């Protein structure tokens, strides 16, 4: 065997100070645990949040009716009411055309745009739902289930993970609304729109995990909605799904360039959430760097104590011909050992914590976040970053304490000068 003697000595040194070694391994393991856990838990939480609110509740991109520009609106008002009345109206009076016209052409155009996976039209209007003397304001959404589920992933909210077939007088409502109305599947409710009032059968009760949706939302068939709101063959808007979330920005600006309509993507709709995530990511990174720095200082201190306590031995090695590089190598090998064992322990612990969370997820306020519970998932990047930071810490400590030890004059240490 030609194992370098540096390895042998490193092993002996660690084995001789089990307490010291265990303390360093434990400290490093703990630092790794924290450095993996904090970013993982934050990003898991926000991924869940984004998944719920974007993938499952709204489309990547929505094409709304054209917005009237200020000039056009003035013009329209003047035509209708004469010059004298213009000042009495604000531009909020006619924010946009009520409905989307030419939806088939728009839909075809959107489908052809690269990055677009599917397009669905929908109706979205306000109505009142009542049963007995309980009245609830609700948003009625008219969809073609098959087509719509290709755009927004809502099927999972329904029993059997399928959007039910919606007949002309069927409605699907959220479970909170059902509780509030004291109603079960198969029973009937009244739905009143400005145009009509009709009795509808509750075909299914869904659970979106999104408070507002579960309380104030009802799905009906597209044709039913068009009839209820007197829209003829028009719809409210088009929902567009992109290949992935990240592409939504570029696709929406392409669409905006090609059509006169108002095009909004999920990032516009969730700007405050995204800003919050960006802030949290910054804070998380800052905390991680802080943890790494504190741990580095601690580790470097412990390590230089470790080295200082055997200055004499290192001096003897120098006296019998070991090079400075060899001394550094011994310390480096010790550091590497601590790194390997410490990161394995830290990563194992953090995986254990995450596994525990999968079994016992945190509950959070649904009203606030739209998700009722969440658990930390392992985020590979967090592991890579934490292991790399730990390696830098250990190698840094070893070289820092080794640099001083290697420079010592062996005679001075040996003869105690």
């Amino acid at each position: 065997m030609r194992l370098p003697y540096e390895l042998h000595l490193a092993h002996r040194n660690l084995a001789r100070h089990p307490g010291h070694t265990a303390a360093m391994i434990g400290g490093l393991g703990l630092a790794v645990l924290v450095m993996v856990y904090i970013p993982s838990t934050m990003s898991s939480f926000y991924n869940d949040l984004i998944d719920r609110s974007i993938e499952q509740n709204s489309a990547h991109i929505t094409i709304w009716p054209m917005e009237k520009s200020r000039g056009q609106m003035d013009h329209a008002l003047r035509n209708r009411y004469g010059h004298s009345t213009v000042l009495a109206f604000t531009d909020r009076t006619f924010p946009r055309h009520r409905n989307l016209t030419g939806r088939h052409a728009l839909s075809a155009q959107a489908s052809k745009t690269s990055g677009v996976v599917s397009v669905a039209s929908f109706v979205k209007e306000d109505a009142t739902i009542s049963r007995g003397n309980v009245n609830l304001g609700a948003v009625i959404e008219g969809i073609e289930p098959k087509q719509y589920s290709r755009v927004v992933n809502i099927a999972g909210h329904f029993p059997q993970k399928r959007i039910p077939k919606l007949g002309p007088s069927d409605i699907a409502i959220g479970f909170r609304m059902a509780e509030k109305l004291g109603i079960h599947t198969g029973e009937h409710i009244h739905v009143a729109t400005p145009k009509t009032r009709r009795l509808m059968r509750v075909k299914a009760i869904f659970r979106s995990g999104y408070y507002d949706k579960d309380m104030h939302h009802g799905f009906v068939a597209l044709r039913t909605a068009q009839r209820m709101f007197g829209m003829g063959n028009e719809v409210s808007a088009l929902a567009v799904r992109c290949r992935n979330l990240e592409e939504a920005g570029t696709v929406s600006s392409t669409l905006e360039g090609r059509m006169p309509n108002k095009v909004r993507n999920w990032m516009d709709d969730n700007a405050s959430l995204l800003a919050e995530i960006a802030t949290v990511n910054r804070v998380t990174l800052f905390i991680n760097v802080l943890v790494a720095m504190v741990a580095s200082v601690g580790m470097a201190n412990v390590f230089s104590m470790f080295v200082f306590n055997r200055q004499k031995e290192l001096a003897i090695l120098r006296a019998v011909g070991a090079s400075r590089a060899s001394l550094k190598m011994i310390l480096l090998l010790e550091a590497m050992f601590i790194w390997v064992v410490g990161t394995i322990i830290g990563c194992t612990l953090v995986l254990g914590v995450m596994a525990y969370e999968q079994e016992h997820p945190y509950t959070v306020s649904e009203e606030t976040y739209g998700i009722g519970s969440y658990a930390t998932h392992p985020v590979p990047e967090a592991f890579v970053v934490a292991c790399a930071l730990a390696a830098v810490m250990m190698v840094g400590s070893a070289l820092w304490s080794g640099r001083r030890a290697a420079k010592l004059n062996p005679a001075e240490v040996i003869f105690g000068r």
Partner: protein
Amino acid sequence: MLLKVENLDKHFGGDVPLHILRDINLELAEREFLAMIGPSGAGKTTLLNIISTLDAPTGGRVLIKNVDVHRLDQHALNRFRNRRLGFVFQDDLLLPHLTALENVALPARISRRSTRQASRRAEELLEQVGLNDRMKHKPGQLSGGQRQRVNLARALVNEPALLLADEPTARLDQATSQGIVQLLGELNEQLGVTILMVTHERELTNCAGRVVEFLDGRIVSDRSTDPGRRTCTKPLDT
């Protein structure tokens, strides 16, 4: 000449400047066993440290096999300490967490000999110094005399050109000291190891072929002993 010390001077700075070595000239041939004797504080250790490259001279130079040892670069110096020199210090300098065998094998490992080779050589030497049954013991489990013998074996493992021994018998009793010195005499006679030994007890110079007397940083006498008059007896088992 194996060792040539030329016009060596050593000052120590500090609050009270000291002139410890004054113009030392000394030559040592191969296979010689030189004992250096002098009172405490004479500068013996200082001289030995300079010869062993652990300290630098203020003036003059040290040639070992015609190499000026204080002009070697770091790499060559490491090699030189490892391959050419064997030390036995006034205090025993063993690594406490290595066994006797591992301590002895260490310089051989540093010179990148295989573990097997190094161990075999270390075993031979430990046998030679009479420690066959203590190879797996750590320094803490050995007596002072046994530790010094381990030191001696370690100093010899790379077959050095020159063995420097600075009071190898310090802190040992009379009989044990005698045993160590006799061992040195044996190594010198049988293996032809060149030895420069420092002591301050005249009785311990009985195995040396040459005795140099040191006083106040100067060599005051230098004489060879007649091989017939040496009173070096068989080593005692300590």
